[in-house]
């Protein structure tokens, strides 16, 4: 009875979850229609804006073809997934072709060169400052962000007002952020020592136990001795606060430990 109950539950759950996934994938095809319909309307708007009622024949032909493909996509749903996917990709290809034709003649440009707008730039800097604030708080670094907050506000007002050019303030802001970032990194390096020391101590205890076991089951004594030497070396380097070197020796120890474990099966 119990087995039967277990089996029923098992079948129901596994059966249901796999069917739900299938159904989900099936419904997802409606996304294709949403995107294609939006693109269709967008291209229609663009054609109207650029050409009015005199759309060039070639472009009109492509648009009609694209529009028909969107209609076909709509009809393919929900049963003919293969056709729907094909229609989606075809329509998007046609719309892309049309938009490129409308835009010609053009020179492709790298975004960074001309399109960096100050509002987006400010958004990015604000986001980055927020990240630094969170890290600073986590480290309890007590870093003063007042100056940066003032500059952010000033830049906001300049962009909003449109009377002053904020470039100068953005340069000041970037410089302040770089300085604060440096302070945080310096502070973080101190707390990193404690964090790494704790981690290494825990790992060395673990390795010690593994070596004891390995010795008992007959692992190569030379390797075991070498591992103990490396443990002492790591401890000595940690005591001297030579974190980087300690990490390298620890890595060597870890590799040796893997060899020992492999040799004893």
């Amino acid at each position, binding site marked *: 009875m119990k087995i039967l109950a277990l089996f029923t539950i098992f079948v129901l759950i596994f059966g249901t979850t796999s069917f739900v996934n299938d159904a989900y994938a099936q419904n997802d095809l409606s996304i294709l229609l949403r995107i294609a319909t939006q*693109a269709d309307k967008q291209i229609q708007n663009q054609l109207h804006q650029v050409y009015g009622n005199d759309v060039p024949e070639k472009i009109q032909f492509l648009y009609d073809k694209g529009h028909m493909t969107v209609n076909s996509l709509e009809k393919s749903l929900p049963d003919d997934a293969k056709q729907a996917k094909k229609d989606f990709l075809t329509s998007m290809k046609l719309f892309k072709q049309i938009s490129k034709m409308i835009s010609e003649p053009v020179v492709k440009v790298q975004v960074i060169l001309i399109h960096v707008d100050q509002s987006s730039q400010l958004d990015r800097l604000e986001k980055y400052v927020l990240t630094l604030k969170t890290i600073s708080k986590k480290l309890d670094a007590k870093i003063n962000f007042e100056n940066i907050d003032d500059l952010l506000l000033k830049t906001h007002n300049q962009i909003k007002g449109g009377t002053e050019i904020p470039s100068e303030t953005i340069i000041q802001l970037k410089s302040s952020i770089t300085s604060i970032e440096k302070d945080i990194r310096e502070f973080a390096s101190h707390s990193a020592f404690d964090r790494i020391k704790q981690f290494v101590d825990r790992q060395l205890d673990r390795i010690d136990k593994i070596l004891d076991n390995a010795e008992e089951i007959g692992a190569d004594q030379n390797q075991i001795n070498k591992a103990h030497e490396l443990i002492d070396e790591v401890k000595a380097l940690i005591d001297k606060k030579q974190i980087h070197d300690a990490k*390298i020796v620890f890595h060597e120890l870890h590799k040796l430990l893997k060899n020992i474990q492999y040799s004893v099966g």
Partner: protein
Amino acid sequence: MNAEIIQTHRKKFLREDGMLFVRTDGIIDTMTRIPLLVASLIIVLALIPIQSSFGSPRNLDLMIYPDGTTHVTTEIDVDPLSIDYELNLFGSTIDNFVTINENGFLLNHEIRGNSVLIETFASSVIFIEYDIHDLVSKQSRVWTFSLDSPSDFTLLFPKNSAIIGMTNLPIDMQLINDQNQLTLPSGETEINYLFSTPIITTPVEPINSSPESNYLIYAIVGGIVASAIIATIIRIKQRTTKLTQNQQTTPIEQIDTEEIFKLKPDIREDDKEIVKFISNNGGKALESELRKKFLQPRTTMWRAVKRLERNGIIEIEKKDLQNLVKLRKNMEEEE
């Protein structure tokens, strides 16, 4: 002195004819609980995503700014015993790069062209954020986003942008604050978009049911009914044993956070920020949203949410396999 082991329990309960009687009170309980426990384990196993190996992104989220610069956020499992981890970036023009570990500690890094070397020793998960200028180019009015992604990723488009070309099929699409967000598969992707007046999304007609889809619906309904039966059994059992504590809570639109802080003066400052955010967000937020907002690792945010739940300030619901965190209305009554 020799110690003698005496099996007192057997002697006490064995009758003269040697029959063993045992208490039966717990058997029904056990019989019901074990299948439920196993079923729960199966559900959990079926729903937990397969853990990724070291070096593969747990998630990858991209956001395009109106000027084409892209903000990249990713979370990667790393080997805590490795000294460092080298990550390929999606280009070489990188700004505002920052990486922290699962405990929120800042990690050192060195950007070398298209890659970055991060000191990951003693960290098992790293969170990386940066801005990149290489992913979007512009041709007249048409903007083109191109990426060869190692994993599935989400892509948030700027406001008032409309997609007009795509080279592959999206996995999902959502509208977030009037911005389209696509979930896309790994591999090469090229998407063309332009800025325009927003277009009202045409409602998609309901999908016609076919015999096959009817079968699926029956299976789903069957599953739901089975789950409902299991849930009812659990409920009935709970009612018979613990009927006294029936605390139904309802999420509310807006709660005065100051009232909450008065009622719970001991909550931490960072937890207060979370409560304020949830309150401003209509009284509820996904745990993933909280992580993004406060830039906290998964475990840290999970602990914070659990803390608030223990304090009776919030309640957690499952929504689409995610944790939906809701402020509780009847805190005062509980006090």
